[in-house]
């Protein structure tokens, strides 16, 4: 089968079909064998990592992925000291760096920056997060983690908990889940409910989410809980934040009493997950972060059409 990813970009989940998501996940499963020992399929290839915003996990995991494939990376971890600070446009920086590398990952604070990069450049561009709009490789690794841990995605009941309004991670995951046959439960405080336009979109795609603010029942019903950080900045006053944050704290007691569903979180966590859950078998958020490596190895392999079985 020809590799339809070759030479393309990975900018948003919105334009990806279920089949395409499955292709990347299947490839990621193949990559697991090289995850710790490495391979040499990307030897001689260079990836540019342009991080106009710092991001520990995303950057390191992209770099690890490229190096495990036998390739190398060049770039910067934050705009300080780069030509951007001298007033160069993003477009000029991109056009210059693309002369040096074969593939590029971009993280930039402006929404739509990755799409612009893809339009300007001939080499494949991967979106490492553009403002609050998209972070599609996070969604890929979330889907991959669900599939890996539960065996499949279809037929599962998934609860998204926490900030469903501003968190791009949950919004993007919800959108991706419309490609699968799942029950979706949305559990969030009133102030952080999912925006109406996305609810309408989910509905139109045949996914009718159940909205609730009862943590107990949405834990008991779920095969998997995907929790996100509730940010202080979203609340007008600190007492309101504390009240909500406390009500949404997931701890060992809650999980044990409610059938021990799988617990995912994009990290970093603050108060929403109590550290007393860390030794439980069903808490997989560190594995989830680790899955970023085979998933990104898979994506790089597909976009560069690297040799491999």
């Amino acid at each position, binding site marked *: 089968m020809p590799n339809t990813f070759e030479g393309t970009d990975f900018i948003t989940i919105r334009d990806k079909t279920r089949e395409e998501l499955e292709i990347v996940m299947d490839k990621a499963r193949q990559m697991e064998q090289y995850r710790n020992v490495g391979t040499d399929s990307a030897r001689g290839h260079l990836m540019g990592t342009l991080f106009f915003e710092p991001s520990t996990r995303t950057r390191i995991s992209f770099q690890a992925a490229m190096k495990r494939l036998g390739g190398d990376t060049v770039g910067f971890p934050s705009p300080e000291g780069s030509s951007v600070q001298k007033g160069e*446009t993003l*477009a000029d920086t991109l056009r210059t760096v693309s002369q040096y590398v074969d593939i590029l990952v971009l993280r*930039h604070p*402006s*929404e739509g920056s990755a*799409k*612009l990069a893809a339009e*300007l450049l001939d080499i494949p561009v991967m979106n490492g997060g553009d403002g*609050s709009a998209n972070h599609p490789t996070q969604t890929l690794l979330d889907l991959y983690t669900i599939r890996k841990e539960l065996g499949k995605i279809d037929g599962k009941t998934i609860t998204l908990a926490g900030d469903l309004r501003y968190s791009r991670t949950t919004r993007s995951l919800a959108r991706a889940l419309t490609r699968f046959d799942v029950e979706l439960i949305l559990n969030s405080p009133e102030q952080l409910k999912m925006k109406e336009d996305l609810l309408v979109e989910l509905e139109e795609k045949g996914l009718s989410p159940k909205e609730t603010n009862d943590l107990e029942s949405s834990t008991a019903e779920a095969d998997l809980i995907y929790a996100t950080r509730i940010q202080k900045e979203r609340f007008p006053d600190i007492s309101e934040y504390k009240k909500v944050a406390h009500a949404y704290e997931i701890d060992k007691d809650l999980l044990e009493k409610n059938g021990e569903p799988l617990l995912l979180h994009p990290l970093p966590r603050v108060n929403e997950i109590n550290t007393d859950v860390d030794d439980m078998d069903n808490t997989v958020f560190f594995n989830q972060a680790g899955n970023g490596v085979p998933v990104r190895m898979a994506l790089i392999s597909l976009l560069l059409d690297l040799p491999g079985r």
Partner: protein
Amino acid sequence: MTPDKQKMKITRIENGTVIDHINPGSALKVFGILGLDEDEESSITIAIRVNSGKMSEKDLLKIEDKFLTPKESAMIALISPRATINIIRSFEVDEKHPVELPEKLTGIFDCDNPNCITNQDREPVEPQFEVAEKEELSVRCLYCDNLMDEGQVTHQLIQES
């Protein structure tokens, strides 16, 4: 007043454009987005909530010596999708067609998300939208996914004219 005399109230133009069937009450918006307040040459007639038969009302705008660009026509379609454009030459209607809302709107108005890449200084990119909903107008920015409704679009159009 006889019907004939009522007609006389609206001056005929020799050459120019008559924008007809504008949504009642929207003529001033069209006036604004076409930047006609800055136009010191053309003679302009505005009619607001005139009878258009069948118990309905419409607005109308006649602009002497002005012919619309496709971009201007698209702008009118955004706020008044049922408007028609009549091109007048030598007092005769030379051409008549409805305004058309293109599937993609490029470089017509700015995205109202300040963080959108299309709003960043000196980046070589034009704002681009797709029409998400035609009836109750909403457009989606093809760069940042921002949804804008008719009010927001009109606001941007007027700001830019």
